[in-house]
């Protein structure tokens, strides 16, 4: 029995891309995966960049979601990187942070202003770090595997340059900077340094970045395509080390549903991202807890306690006076991941058929059982 899991990085796709996922199906997927609170990214259509959109998401979630949904607002209007979004107005009706996820704010000057502004409202910045000029149209990690497969590579610097830039900006503005889906060894070095210097930063890693290497791309299955891309063995080892050392505070899924037609096509043309809500628990237990990289308690901290701290919400611990968000997991149950059993509308996962341990048996939200014996109520 653990405090309800919290995922700070989810794409619910509604409004605009209901054929991939909706607030209803996304929250069901979360519940089945053991999450009781999820934060949804603003790269919808239209973008969540004003208070009306935030209200809409909250209303929809109240009506249709079976877990708590906390909206994240965008940093700039329409995520166009030109003018600040209505951050203050959104803060008033309730967002848990701001993010440009899907891309970076390219203009460093604007990013700095956004940080100064967000600090006033005590909002963390959830930062997707990617320099598109360095990505240069690549579709997998640059290196020997890309050379072998003949795919254009994305160098690690594409991520690290932005991580370094935004750490410096965070130091100067004092905002809390949360670095999303960190995937390279070099990024970790910058984050370690930032923490040593007392800068207010935190970092998350996605299960696929500690459970898969770039070698999975062989065969051109587009379910191995994501941003940032799957990295080298050394990077994967570094992620595990970073989790162990506590440089990485949070495990987040970057749940990114896509329709089968957007994945069953030419690799370079395929959409970025995979669904992750229903595989996070077994991957964490199989890859981190069982090999002894994290103790069960440390793993719970990264799946619930630390996310709650980042969002500044009263969750993430089991206490008498708290809301009853609880997840019950059988850590020993062994099974094969089956994408067709997912509650998510999309099945784009590279983990189909993988043998894992750890099954979510019950998810309790606000004292109400929403998942019973592993099935939605």
């Amino acid at each position, binding site marked *: 029995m653990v405090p309800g899991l919290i995922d700070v990085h989810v794409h619910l796709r509604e409004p605009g891309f209901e054929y991939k996922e909706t607030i209803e199906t996304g929250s069901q997927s979360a519940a089945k995966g053991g999450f009781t609170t999820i934060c949804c990214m603003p790269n919808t259509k239209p973008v969540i960049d004003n208070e009306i959109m935030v209200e809409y998401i909250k209303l929809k979630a109240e009506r249709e979601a079976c877990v708590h949904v906390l909206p994240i607002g965008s940093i700039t209007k329409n995520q166009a990187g030109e003018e600040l979004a209505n951050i203050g107005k959104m803060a008033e009706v309730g967002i848990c942070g701001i993010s440009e996820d899907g891309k970076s704010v390219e203009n460093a000057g604007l990013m700095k202003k956004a940080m100064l502004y967000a600090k006033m409202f005590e909002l963390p910045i959830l930062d997707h770090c990617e320099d598109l000029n360095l990505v240069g149209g690549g579709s997998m990690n*640059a*290196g*020997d595997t*890309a*050379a*072998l*497969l*003949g*795919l*254009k*590579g994305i160098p690690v610097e594409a991520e690290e340059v932005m991580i370094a830039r935004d750490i410096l900006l965070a130091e100067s503005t004092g905002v809390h900077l949360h670095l999303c889906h960190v995937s390279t060894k070099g990024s970790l070095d910058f984050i370690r340094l930032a923490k040593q210097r007392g800068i207010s930063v935190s970092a998350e890693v996605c299960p696929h970045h500690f459970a898969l290497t770039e070698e999975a791309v062989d*065969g*051109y299955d587009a379910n191995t395509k994501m941003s940032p891309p799957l990295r080298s063995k050394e990077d994967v080892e570094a992620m595990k080390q970073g989790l162990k050392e506590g440089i990485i505070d949070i495990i987040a899924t970057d749940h990114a549903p896509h329709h089968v*037609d957007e994945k*069953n*096509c*030419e*690799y*370079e*043309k395929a959409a970025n991202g995979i669904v992750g809500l229903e595989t996070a628990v077994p991957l964490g237990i199989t890859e981190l807890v069982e090999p002894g990289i994290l103790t069960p308690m440390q793993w719970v901290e990264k799946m619930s306690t630390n996310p709650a701290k980042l969002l500044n919400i009263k969750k993430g611990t089991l206490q008498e006076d708290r809301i009853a968000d609880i997840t019950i997991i059988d850590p020993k149950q062994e099974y094969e991941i089956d994408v067709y059993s997912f509650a998510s509308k999309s099945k784009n996962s590279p983990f189909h058929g993988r043998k894992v341990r750890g099954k979510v048996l019950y998810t309790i939200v606000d004292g109400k059982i929403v998942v019973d014996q592993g099935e939605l109520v």
Partner: protein
Amino acid sequence: MWSKKDLLGIRNLSKEEIQIILELAKEKKAQMQKPLRRKHECVLYNMITLFYENSTRTKMSFTLAGKYLGMQVSDLGVQTSSVNKGESLIDTGFTLDQMGVDVIAIRHSMTGAPHLLAKNMKASVINAGDGTNEHPTQALLDMFTILEKKNQIENLKVAIVGDIAHSRVARSNIFGLTKMGAKVVLGGPPTLVPSSMKSLGAEIAKDIPTAIQEADVIMGLRIQKERQKGGLFPDLREYAHCFGIHKELLALAKPDVLIMHPGPVNRGVELTTEIIDGEHSVIYDQVENGVAIRMAILHLLTEGRKNYENFDQTRIYYRSFYQERRDMRYFNQEWQNSSCTTTNIF
């Protein structure tokens, strides 16, 4: 018997399989130029050329190779077809499959496109060039040409010069030549010669003279003017000066060096006219050998298709198209993974 369903790249061919193809191509070359000697060995089969990128030369080479073997060859004009209306690659594949096509030769601007088709189709797929990945028939015809002129590939030094980063010809040749025991040395501007190519078994020379020093074969690659815009080299004038092959440079190579180029050549850029038309050049032999190699491949693949009959017999039991496709993908995987090891099959 040949057992691979598709020809997707040199990377997944064994040395023995390459030898089988080169051996058979010798036989085909003797037939192709003499109409009375052509045996219409593949008369039962048909082929479609599906070119998403223009390449008159390669397409014509495939077409003639098929026709010399008696195949029915048609071209799916990508520019005028439903592809232009936004039909997906897989849907195009399904449609052609249902019409009973046996072999597809595909050229596509994206890496892995032929692999996607191969996985999803009953037809045998030949990769006629995919993105920045492979161009296996070109590498095979290059190896055939080297073998024809030098009687060996093993222990030769082959210098490949130019835009390695974007060249599927270079990559297929690196896979093939290193498998056959040659030493491959790459030369060109550092922006176009990624250091990761070393992991494929090639050496990277510090400059062009080092690359062609004592070379048995020099392969020039076509430089595309568009790369200039990406900041990969300043302009063609400077490229020709710093990286082009001219007569003085040639003196560094072995006296009987072969000059090759996959074409079309930019005269005066990658190679000077003097060299293109000179005594070392085998550029036109390459064109002829291309047809012979493609005949050999078509012959082998159509022979391998007898495997498919095992699957086809079960067809009648399928209730739906999609159910059949699912099983076929599994079948294709098994088929593709099987490999041919015996050399004496003819």
